[in-house]
């Protein structure tokens, strides 16, 4: 993290014209895949991410089974063409870590005890990356879990705050992430229980406090969009009266 010579603000606005506490444009679509039990496509700024949920289903290999609950698996994966310099296919150390913390961001709200000996698989594909892929992935995955009918205590919404030019900003984009002073992604329930928290960079305790509050505000706004996307899809289904939703090709 070097600030180098970049200036991150112009006339009080950020390089992409946002205020410090403003989210990038977000678009959420539910049920975009036919084979998956639940799915969601999200755009957050330049990020394009798709999530699918399969399950509850049988666990392979068997020895991973838990007698009293479903296990949750989460696979964060970047497409080779999603980044400036082509990424080698397959998981690297970064994606292993993100998969772990993302799973731990969602697992607290999933009612795993309803499905002993089974697995709930969450697959997240980053098709285009632009800072914030982990938060976008969690947001999409949470909606896909709901779309799959997985019982959850609540929704999960995720957003990051950053620090550039000693200012706390919401939802950092690529330049702010690369050259900023800190990055702090969180995920939480609508009533503010934090399920993911990571941070790197350099923050005073007060700045940390401010960044958490700002990220939580962002997550609350995202929650409204997630909710709306699910309601919209449900409304459309209800319109087609008598027509049951079928998860199948064609």
């Amino acid at each position: 993290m070097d600030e180098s010579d970049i200036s991150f603000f112009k006339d009080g606005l950020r390089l992409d014209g946002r205020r410090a506490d403003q989210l990038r444009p977000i678009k959420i679509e539910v049920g975009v895949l036919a084979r998956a039990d639940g799915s969601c496509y999200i755009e957050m700024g330049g990020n394009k991410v798709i999530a699918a949920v399969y399950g509850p289903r049988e666990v392979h290999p068997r020895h991973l089974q838990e007698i009293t609950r479903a296990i949750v698996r989460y696979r964060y994966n970047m497409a080779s063409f999603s980044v400036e310099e082509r990424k080698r296919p397959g998981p690297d150390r970064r994606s292993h870590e993100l998969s772990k913390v993302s799973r731990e961001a969602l697992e607290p709200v999933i009612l795993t005890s309803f499905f002993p000996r089974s697995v709930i698989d969450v697959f997240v594909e980053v098709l285009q990356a632009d800072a914030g892929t982990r938060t976008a992935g969690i947001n999409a995955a949470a909606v896909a879990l709901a779309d799959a009918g997985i019982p959850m205590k609540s929704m999960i919404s995720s957003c990051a705050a950053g620090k550039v030019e000693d200012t706390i900003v919401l939802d950092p984009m690529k330049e702010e992430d690369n050259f900023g002073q800190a990055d702090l992604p969180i995920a939480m329930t609508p009533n503010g229980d934090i399920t993911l928290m990571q941070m790197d960079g350099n923050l005073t305790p007060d700045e940390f406090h401010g960044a958490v509050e700002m990220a939580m505000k962002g997550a609350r706004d995202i929650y409204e969009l997630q909710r709306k996307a699910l309601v919209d899809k449900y409304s459309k289904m209800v319109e087609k009266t008598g027509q049951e939703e079928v998860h199948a090709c064609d």
Partner: protein
Amino acid sequence: MPVTNVISEIKKDFIYNHLLKGERVDGRTFDQYREISIERDVIRKAEGSALVKLGSSQVLVGVKMQPGEPFQDSPSRGVIITNAELVPLASPSFEPGPPNEMGIELARLVDRGVRESKAIDLEALCIVPGKQVWIVFIDVHILDDCGNILDAAALGAIAALMSTKVPASRFGLGEDYILPIRDIPIATTTIEFNDVLMLDPGVDEEAIANTRLTIITTANGNICGAQKSGTGMLKPEQVYRIIDIACEKAKEIREKFLEA
């Protein structure tokens, strides 16, 4: 889950009985493709990209380019590297991990179409003979497997290549330019069941009629690739019939989607 298996067995019976009566379960004629849509330039970070929908099947192909070393036996020609990721998001039967036999076959067939049709002018991709040439990475990302992802992937590959800009300026190699494309290979896949031939199989049709023949044709109507797959057999006459259908269908698709 047992329940799913029962449903899937019932569904298979249903399709099977339709096929015996000479009908496809979704009402298509035997030589009819599902609806095709191609959206190009969907991934800004890629040099070229295309999202292909074939009915409910969805395949995203991204093309990346970067300078690299040529192969020793072709010092002044660019290099094509094709990879396919059958990510587990796309089907309950796909598993995480390196490409399996099926993913490798798919990638190699997509590659064969591009390579054998000479669609890319590889000589034009030489930067310094014997030292530096352009590497063209064709990455196929299957998003939703509702059958016949091979044809969709091949279509996505050529569509993405046709929208590819060589990123010369990023590497200090002059101005960007459009990747020169000289041919438009089209892959069409036909399945055989009870001596009935059906184009563009859906995922359940694939499960039942496990004999497939893929024919890749060039713009002038020649054949540049063929591959039988599955554990069935084909009579030579069936092969020749499939080739006739394939050549005609490929022409239609090429004209409708790629020469517009």
